[in-house]
């Protein structure tokens, strides 16, 4: 985790604070603890996001977000409502955020430089409470698949955005559990941190998280309306390709790329290059003098950054893998 965080910082530094990762580690929670809004602050700020929390003092109940580092991924039920099924944060980190969408939805507001900008994405997994409820059933909610195992159940996270006070019709959907397969062996409940690419949503002021389940009755959704997130990456001003200046003294083509990119050095000299993914993780590196054809066929679709170093000068440019 430390390495990733460091790389992210480097990445941010040469991108003029291009991206901020909210990884929730800065809350410095004691082991096996959580913040559930009982301080009355109405939410949590981390990086360039604000996670709202509504805490009912009289009853000790909350909705919205909690920050947690509890590791219990075996105890079912409400008493273990803060834990992620992974038993830890993304990439072995300690802390993550747990969302509870009582009444249907919860949201994250983008703040500071991230306001009105694109959100790259985030990692999501099931809460232990929802995961075990879907896997085993409980006194309120059904085990997914039903009595025969054939029910086409699902637990769906839908993310929309608000931009200029308008809720988007476009959405990004993530199945936290999907039992709709003909072949039941393909049915799954998400139990790992899974990356959600939010770039299709475009620029946003806030993100809206909706949970729906096939196990729904008169009293609403029976599946516990909990989920966990980590490492949400906001972009602070430069995420669109057209906003990034092209490399001076080089050409990068094609962009968008599919199987390769070609980098041409207009003036001779040794060049070191690195390619980073959205999280600032180096996925490829090397060096060349005049021209280099770099294979990108192994890269997942998405946005990448190529960093060029020549004679101590660092430049970078975004490219898109289709």
């Amino acid at each position, binding site marked *: 985790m430390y390495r990733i965080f460091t790389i992210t910082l480097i990445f941010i530094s040469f991108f003029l604070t291009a991206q901020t990762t909210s990884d929730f580690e800065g809350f410095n929670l004691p082991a096996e603890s959580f913040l559930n809004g009982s301080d009355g602050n109405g939410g949590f700020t981390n990086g360039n996001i604000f996670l709202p929390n509504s805490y009912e003092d009289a009853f000790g*109940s909350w909705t919205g977000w909690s920050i947690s580092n509890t590791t219990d991924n075996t105890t079912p039920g409400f008493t273990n409502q803060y834990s992620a099924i992974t038993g830890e944060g993304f990439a072995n980190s300690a802390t993550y955020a747990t969302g509870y969408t009582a009444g249907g939805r919860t949201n994250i507001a983008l703040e500071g430089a991230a306001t009105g900008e694109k959100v790259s994405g985030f990692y999501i997994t099931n809460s232990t409470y929802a995961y075990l409820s879907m896997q085993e059933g409980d006194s309120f909610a059904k085990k997914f698949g039903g009595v025969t195992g054939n029910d086409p159940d699902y637990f769906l996270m839908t993310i929309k955005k608000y931009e200029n006070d308008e809720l988007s019709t476009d959405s990004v959907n993530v199945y936290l559990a999907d039992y709709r397969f003909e072949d039941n062996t393909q049915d799954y409940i998400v139990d790992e941190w899974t990356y959600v690419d939010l770039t299709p949503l475009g620029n946003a002021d806030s993100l809206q998280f909706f949970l729906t389940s096939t196990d729904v009755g008169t009293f609403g959704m029976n599946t516990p309306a909990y989920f966990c997130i980590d490492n949400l990456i906001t972009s602070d001003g430069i995420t669109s390709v057209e906003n990034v200046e092209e490399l001076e003294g080089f050409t990068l083509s094609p962009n968008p790329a599919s199987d390769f990119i070609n980098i041409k050095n207009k003036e001779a000299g040794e060049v070191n290059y690195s390619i980073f993914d959205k999280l600032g993780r180096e996925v490829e590196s090397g060096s060349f003098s005049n021209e280099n054809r770099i294979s990108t066929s192994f890269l997942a679709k998405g946005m990448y950054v190529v960093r060029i170093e020549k004679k101590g000068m660092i430049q970078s440019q975004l490219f898109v893998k289709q």
Partner: protein
Amino acid sequence: MILFLRYFTFLLFYMLSFCANAQIDTTIVLEEIEVKSAHIRQEGVGSNVEKWDVTNLKSVGSNNIAELLSAESGVFIKSYGLGSLSTSSLRGGSAGHTLVLWNGLPLQSPMLGLLDLSLLPINSAEEVTLQKGGKSAAWGSGAIGGLISLKNKPDFSHKFSLNSSVAVGSFGYRQQQFQYGFGSKKFQSRTKVFSQQAENDFSYFIAENLPDRKQSNARLSQQNILQDLYWKLKSNQQISVHLWQQYSDRQIPPTNVQNLSVAHQDDRSLRGIINWKKVGERTVLQVKGGFVKEDLDYFDDQQLLESRSSFETLFGEFTTQFAFQNNTIFHVGMTQFYTKAESAGYQNAPSESRTALFASYRLEGEKWQIQTSLREELVNSKFIPLTSDIGGQVQLFPRLHIKGKVSRNYRLPTLNDRFWKPGGNENLLAESGWSQEMTLAADLIKSKRTQANFSLTGFNRTIKNWIWWSRREGESYWSAQNLAEVWSRGLETRFSISHQINNLTLSLKTGYDFIQSTNKIAIENPQIEAGSQLFYTPKHRFFANGKVKWKTFVLAYQQQFSGATEGVNEDLPSYFFSNLRLQNNFAQNGINGSIFLNINNLWDTDYFIIERRPMPGRHFQIGINFSFNQKI
């Protein structure tokens, strides 16, 4: 199963050995010797009353009051499964709309507002009465759909009595009962010990090509000790004391879409009542004191849940009745309740004090009766609106009666509704409203050998401020609100006939209920549409009980039909359900007894009363009962 077969063989041989010289059971409880109170409050003028005495109760084949009401009276019982929570819906009301009294003491939990009728063993009372319709003016909170009354009664003719029974059945069912009584013409004591255990590990159908699933974590263990004491101080004065201790340990089985449950619930209750009454030539005076102490503990070791709650209620009542002339009776009384409850769900231990003043007035002629009642109740220094009713009945023709009643009824919010954290709402109003009913009753045949009667009842009831737990916009928790208005109306028909030919008695009791109980106001969360039928409330319900009695043998067949209902998660289809009972009575050397075989769910119907809560298929119970009485 081997044990069951062994029991079965033993009982079968036992039964056969008695057949040769069997006699018809001649046990008759001599009630007339008891100092009778004859309170007009207890006798509903204008509404229907069904009564089961000790002899009936022994022969119905039901184990508890829930089964009795369902099989014998067609009452819809909302049961979560064999041995699990069972509550009644009378005339389309909720579980909290049936008041349950034990010797005049309300048994409902003030925290939940309901009583699990499966926890009331059939032999806990010598008389069970079901009165349908609104009774709040006489009995107060909760008596909206009707009233179930359990009474213990003395038999001053016995010097000594013993009664013992054992029964075994499918799914590890065991039941033992021992009753010992002694006394004189002035004093009677009766001690009852009753226990039952069951694994309830029945198998239930999943789907074609899939093996049945066996129910797990469904064990029930229940013990009861009841002590009744009666002193006749003078020929017109009597004191009775009743004590009832009950232990019930139940596992909570998983739903059919839950792999495992390790939850269990322990109920402990101690109830006591002391009653003094004096019957004068024109007056009846009665003073009662009682208490209920109950603990309800719920555990789920898997979810690390431990929820303990308890309450204590003290009860005092004074009533007096005057008969002015031969045709006028005036009854007045006062009741005081004090309840204190404790639970982790409450911020502080809440208490509730309720004081009620009530009066009834009856005027009667040779062929008619009119009765009106009034009640004013003070709950924690706040007045509940005045409650009243008026009922009457007239004999139109020698064999045709018409009766009717108009009543205002209410149900107070429970302690959970008011104080639970989160969501309790201290400002809740009582649910209340008016109900009307009318019955036409005809004795169709009334001869020595044959009796047949028919009745048709229509009722109409509106309850306002019906309490729902609802989640309001922007709130993270559910809270109790006076949200709904429910309109219940329906028709109830009953027909019964019995015919005797020498040693053979044939009887049939049948009934059909049509009940529409609909929400008048749409609610957003929970999502309830205006005009929709209440959950788990069948519109159609039918029952027929046929009985053939030949010499000492009794063959009884019970058929029930429940119409489709709407559940909170899915709709539930209609179902037929049947029971068969074979009984042989015997008498030898002064010992009376009977041996019985019950086949429940005779046709092995797959059915659900509540979705996800499977019910058992065909299952058996076999038992034997002995009694010995020595008269004074």
